C-alpha cells in the first residue's frame, strides 16, 4: 500500500496502522489509534492538530521516547526495518544518529550543567566515536551552521546564557550533528517570538536541504504548515482525519474538522471583518471517545442518527492520487470552503461556549 503519490524519493519512514496507548488512573488513553503514513527523503511532512490530538505521542513513539506508552499494534518501518522489533541497542543507534528530535522547549531539553558545546559534541562522541577535541570542533561547526555568531566562544557557554532563539538553534545544531536522515521537530517554534520563529524556520529548512533529510513537523500553527510542508496529516482525538498535499488540505479539504480549523483562524491578510467561526463543543477525552466518528458531536455536517455516530470512518482515498479523508460524507464536501462555513454560521454559534455537546446553556 502506498499512502503518498508515487515519488522518486526514497521512503525513509513508513508507519503502518500504529496503535499506542497509556494507562492512567482514570482509564486507558488511546493516544494513537490506527495511524499510517510515509515520509520521504527531502520532504516536510506536517502533523497538525490541537492539544491532545495525539500528534506528539505519534512522533515520540517512533523514537520510543515515552516508556509508559504501550504499542498495541502496527509497524514503524525505518528504511524497511520494523524498529518496534529491534533490540534496544539497535534502536539507540537509530535514535539521535539517523532520526533526531527537536523539542519545543529547549531550556528543558538542554542540560543546564554542561556547556552547549559539550552537549552537542556528545552526539558525535556517542554515535561516531569522536574524541573530545574533535567532538568540540564538530559542535562549533554545527553552531556556526545554524547561524550562531562567534560559535567558538558560544560553544563554551551554558544554556542559560543563550537567548530563546539561540537555544532553539542550539537544539537544531544538536539534532543535525550526526547528519540524520530524518528530523522530527515537535512544535519547534511555538515558544518563540515571530521574528525569531522566522529566523529559526529559515535555518531548519536550509539545513534540511543541505543534509538532504526528511522532516516531520508537528505543529498547531497552520501558517507555518502552509509555508513549509509538502504533505499534511490532520489528527483529531488520536486518529488521522485527513491527509494530502498542502494545497489539497488548504484549498480542497474534504474533512469537516480541517475546514473548521481553517474557518476559526484569524488571518493577517483578512482586512474585512469576516467572522471567525468557532468549532462548537470541546475536544473529546481520549479515555472516553465519542462513538462512531470522534468528531461527530462537534460536526456541522453530521447526519444524526446514522453512520456518523455508529461507525468509525476509515481513512480512504477521496480525490486525486492520494488525498485521503476519514469522513463518511467526504464526497459531499467537494466545493465546500471556509466561505461556505462563514455564510452558514448564525450569531448564536459565533459566541457559543465550548461546553460539551448536548449540555444546555450554549
Amino acid at each position: 500500500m502506498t499512502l503518498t503519490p508515487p515519488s522518486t524519493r526514497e521512503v525513509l519512514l513508513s508507519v503502518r496502522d500504529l496503535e499506542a496507548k497509556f494507562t492512567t488512573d482514570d482509564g486507558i488513553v488511546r493516544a494513537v489509534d490506527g495511524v499510517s503514513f510515509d515520509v520521504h527523503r527531502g520532504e516536510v511532512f506536517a502533523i497538525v492538530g490541537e492539544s491532545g490530538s495525539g500528534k506528539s505521542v505519534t512522533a515520540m513513539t517512533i523514537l520510543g521516547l515515552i516508556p509508559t506508552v504501550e504499542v498495541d499494534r502496527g509497524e514503524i518501518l525505518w528504511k524497511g526495518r520494523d524498529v518496534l522489533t529491534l533490540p534496544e541497542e539497535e534502536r539507540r543507534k537509530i535514535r539521535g544518529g539517523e532520526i533526531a528530535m527537536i523539542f519545543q522547549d529547549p531550556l528543558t531539553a538542554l542540560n543546564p550543567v554542561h556547556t552547549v558545546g559539550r552537549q552537542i559534541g556528545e552526539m558525535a562522541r556517542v554515535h561516531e566515536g569522536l574524541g573530545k577535541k574533535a567532538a568540540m570542533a564538530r559542535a562549533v561547526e554545527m553552531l556556526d551552521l545554524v547561524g550562531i555568531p562567534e560559535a567558538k566562544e558560544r560553544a563554551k557557554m551554558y544554556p542559560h546564557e543563550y537567548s530563546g532563539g539561540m537555544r532553539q538553534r542550539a537544539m537544531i545544531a544538536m539534532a543535525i550533528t550526526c547528519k540524520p536522515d530524518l528530523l522530527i521537530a515537535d512544535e519547534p517554534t511555538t515558544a518563540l517570538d515571530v521574528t525569531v520563529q522566522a529566523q529559526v524556520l529559515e535555518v531548519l529548512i536550509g539545513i534540511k536541504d543541505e543534509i538532504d533529510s526528511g522532516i516531520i513537523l508537528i505543529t498547531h500553527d497552520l501558517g507555518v504548515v502552509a509555508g513549509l510542508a509538502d504533505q499534511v496529516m490532520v489528527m483529531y482525538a488520536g486518529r488521522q482525519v485527513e491527509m494530502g498535499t498542502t494545497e489539497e488540505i488548504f484549498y480542497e479539504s474534504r474533512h469537516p474538522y480541517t475546514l473548521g480549523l481553517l474557518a476559526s483562524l484569524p488571518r493577517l491578510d483578512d482586512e474585512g471583518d469576516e467572522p471567525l467561526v468557532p468549532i462548537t463543543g470541546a475536544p473529546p477525552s481520549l479515555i472516553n471517545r465519542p462513538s462512531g466518528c470522534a468528531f461527530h458531536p462537534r460536526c456541522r455536517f453530521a447526519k444524526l442518527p446514522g453512520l456518523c455516530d455508529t461507525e468509525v470512518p476509515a481513512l480512504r482515498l477521496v480525490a486525486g492520487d492520494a488525498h485521503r479523508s476519514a469522513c463518511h460524507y467526504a464526497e459531499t464536501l467537494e466545493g465546500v470552503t471556509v466561505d461556505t462555513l462563514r455564510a452558514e454560521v448564525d450569531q448564536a454559534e459565533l459566541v457559543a461556549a465550548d461546553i460539551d455537546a448536548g449540555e444546555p446553556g450554549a
Partner: protein
Amino acid sequence: MTEVSTAATPEAAPGDQPLLVATDLVKDFPIRGGVLGRAVGQVSAVAGVSLHVQRRETLGLVGESGCGKSTTGRMLLDLIAPTSGEVLFDGQSLGRTRGKDLATMRRRFQIVFQDPYASLNPRMTVGSTLAEPLKVHFGWRDDQIHDRVQELLTLVGLSPEHANRFPHEFSGGQRQRVGIARALALEPELIVLDEPVSALDVSIQAGVVNLLEMLQDKLGLAYVFIAHDLSVVRHIADRVAVMYLGKIVEEGTRDEIYGRPGHPYTQALLSAVPLPDPRREKARQRIILRGDVPSPANPPSGCRFRTRCWKKLELEEGGVDTSACVEQEPFLDSATIGHPVACHFAATRDVV
C-alpha cells in the same frame, strides 16, 4: 488620527475626550545583585509610552516578549505604579487619587489575564469568585448577588448551573469565559485584556474573540488588547500601537498599521507572521531580522531598533548616511507617512 498630545488636552469637547490617556509612562525595575541585594542597575521595561483609548474602542498593543506591553497594561490600571508619567482615567489622575475615590474608580476598569487557571482561585466555586467583587464594591444582598452571577454566566455563554463548579472542572476556553465574567461583574468601562486567547486552541479561541466583540457592542466597553498574535489583533482592534524595547515605534488605525506600515520593525514583524495559505505564503518576501532583542538594561543609543534594523543596512549599502540612527532618538511623528512612526527613514511598504 489625532496626536496623543492634542487628544490629552482637557479643553477637548466632553464627547471626544478619551476615556483613558497615558502620558510619558516610564517603569524602571531595579536589578539587584551582591550579598546585600542592592540595586546594581536598572531595567527600563517601559521607557516613555503615551497612548489614549476612546470609549467603545479597542486599542491593540502588540510587540514581542519583553517589549513592555504587559507592564504598560498594568500601569494603565494602576496595578504597577509608574516610575514617572501619568494616567488619566475619564479626566482624573490615577496616581493622585487615593482611598475611597480610588476604590470607586477601580470599579470602572478591569483586567483579564492570559492564564485563567492561575488567575482563578482553585478553592472557590465560580459562583463565589464572581460574587466577591459584588460584595466588596456594591455590598449587595445574597439574592441580588445570586441573580447577577447567573446573569454574568449567561452573558459569557456559560450556563447558570456552572456557578457551583470549581475552575478545574472547566476547559481552558470556559475558564477564560469565567475570567471575562469576573471582569464584567462591576460593569466596567474599560478592560485590559492581557493575551486573553494565547493559551487557547484556535477552534476555541475563535469563540472567545467573538464573545469579546459581542460584549463590546452590547455593553459599550473599551478594550486595551495586549497580544503578540498580530492576526488576532487585526481582527479585533480599531487602532494598534506597536512596541519595541519599551517604546511605541508606530501607532495608527488598523488599516494604517496592516496596510501601510512605516516602521522597519512593524514591517519585519508583519512579514514574519505566516499566512495559512500555501500559495500566498510561499510567494511572500520575508524580512528576516538578525540577532536578538538587546537587553532593556542597556538599550542602544539613538534608535533602539538600529542593532537589528534591516533598513539601516539597506541604506548603508546604498551609501546613505545613517549616523542619525545612532546619535538621535527618533520620536513619533506623523509628517512622513500620515500616521505616527518613530523612524528617521520611515517609508511605507506592503508586507502582508
